[in-house]
């Protein structure tokens, strides 16, 4: 088992030729006693659900509250128009992330990665990267084990829950996990993958969890879109050989400190941020009635 990013990179380099997915599978076998085949087949189910969620979310229908739905489809049409300013790989990741979180809001089937509210980032980046890098089924599975390995370290040293650590812990963690997996999928080293994690978390540090009416819709859908797009930029920075001045483990420690110091109004209580704007409060009244 690895408890820090430094240990994770060291163990991958020493025992698995720098392959983090292999380290994660070996660790999972050791901890759970399950066979390699069982573990791979469990991950295959998650992959299948993720890939379906990217497709199933791409509709014009709205959620029960009417707060979200249809934006992924708008992005899809925009990509097809060819007028996009950003690269189409990034834009398709943005579309995918919104599709998954819109589907989640519509009571569709998603794979919570690491949570339902941040379920868009990893599948979004994976689907988009699979097209760009022509990833095989095995490489897609490895992508998820790599993302999970970094997620485990973040979860055990900081948090993956918005109620505990704000949105930096949810979309921040998801985006960082996706960025790291992307680096390895593109042929980058374990160390470079760890640098991408640092880039994402450093830049989402302090992001609050302020869902309108307490629901997993606004701003969650669009935050996943940003998380997915940023994963690509962070991965490119790492692959360019750029390094974080602050070591990744210290960045994760900072995220923990920031989360602990964050007022409860900014931790999924709908008592601060966007939820407390005049429009946020009006939407809440419309959905739940004035007596809440």
């Amino acid at each position, binding site marked *: *088992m690895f*408890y820090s990013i430094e240990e994770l990179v060291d163990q991958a380099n020493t025992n698995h030729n720098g392959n983090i997915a292999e380290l*994660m599978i070996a*660790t*999972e076998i050791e*901890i*759970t006693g399950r066979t390699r085949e069982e*573990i791979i087949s*469990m*991950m295959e*189910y*998650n992959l299948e*659900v993720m890939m379906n969620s990217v497709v199933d979310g791409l509709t014009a229908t709205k*959620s*029960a*509250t009417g707060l979200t739905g249809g934006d992924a489809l708008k992005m899809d049409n925009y990509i097809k128009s060819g007028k996009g300013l950003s690269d189409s790989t990034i834009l398709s990741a943005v579309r995918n992330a919104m599709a998954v979180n819109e*589907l*989640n*809001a*519509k*009571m*569709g*089937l*998603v*794979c*919570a*990665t*690491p*949570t*339902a*509210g941040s*379920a868009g980032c*990893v599948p979004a980046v994976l689907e988009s990267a699979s097209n760009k890098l022509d990833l095989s089924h095995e490489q897609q599975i490895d992508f*998820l*084990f790599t*993302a*999970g*390995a970094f*997620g*485990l370290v973040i*979860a*055990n040293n900081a948090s*993956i*829950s918005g*109620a505990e650590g704000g949105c930096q812990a949810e979309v921040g963690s998801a985006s960082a*996990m996706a960025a790291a997996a992307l680096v390895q999928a593109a042929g980058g080293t374990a160390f470079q993958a760890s640098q991408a994690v640092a880039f994402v978390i450093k830049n989402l540090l302090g992001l609050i969890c302020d869902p309108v*009416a*307490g*629901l*997993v*819709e606004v701003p969650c859908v669009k935050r996943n879109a940003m998380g997915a797009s940023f994963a690509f930029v962070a991965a490119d920075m790492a692959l360019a050989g750029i390094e974080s001045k602050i070591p990744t483990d210290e960045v994760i420690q900072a995220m923990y400190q920031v989360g602990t110091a964050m007022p409860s109004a900014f931790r999924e209580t709908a008592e601060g941020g966007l939820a407390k704007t005049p429009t946020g409060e009006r939407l809440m009244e419309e*959905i*739940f009635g004035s*007596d*809440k």
Partner: protein
Amino acid sequence: MKNVKFKSVFDIIGPVMVGPSSSHTAGAVRIGRIVRSIIGTTPKEVEIHLYQSFAKTYKGHGTDIALVAGLLGMDTDNKRIPESLKIAHEQGMEVSWVIDREGKTSHPNTAKIVIHNDNSTTSITGISIGGGNIQVTELNGFDIALSMNTPTLIIVNEDVPGVVANITDLLSKKKINIAQMNLTRESAGEKAIVIIELDSQDIGDVVEAIRNLPHILNVNFFN
């Protein structure tokens, strides 16, 4: 090995679930499902009390739909969860709601489910404590603490002497250790419920063996 909260990659990548919220949707499905397994059949008449956060936000999170889906026996990744109210109606399950936003409960995500089947009444309270994890805190008026994180047997039996002895005897012969045990019943001579938390996850054919004991009405194992 150090004591850490998350040990498996599937704590991070997963679970597969119908959205939108692990606590208010997936957790609610699990509460409904536990209730169903305790009564052992599809309830005919259900009264569902929602408290505090569940009462305030159930519409947006589909908590009501999720609880009924669980009562129908669905798991958190069942794609038919959104249709649960319609399916319940088709199966003749009558559901009524008591929405109590101000009622005091020990946990903000609390649901109390009261089942009337034929002449019997069963009441069960469940709380959703985050990430899809739940606890059962009350059964027929008795305070219990069932985390469902440990392997748990829930056995419904006729309330006659010797049933519990037969069950524990069988577990002892199979070398399965009991961590905690709860007994409750509707009223003397009616149905009784035995809840046993175990140390072992892999209990082989024990569920089938208990099912074949005399006076056993229903057995479920959660691990």
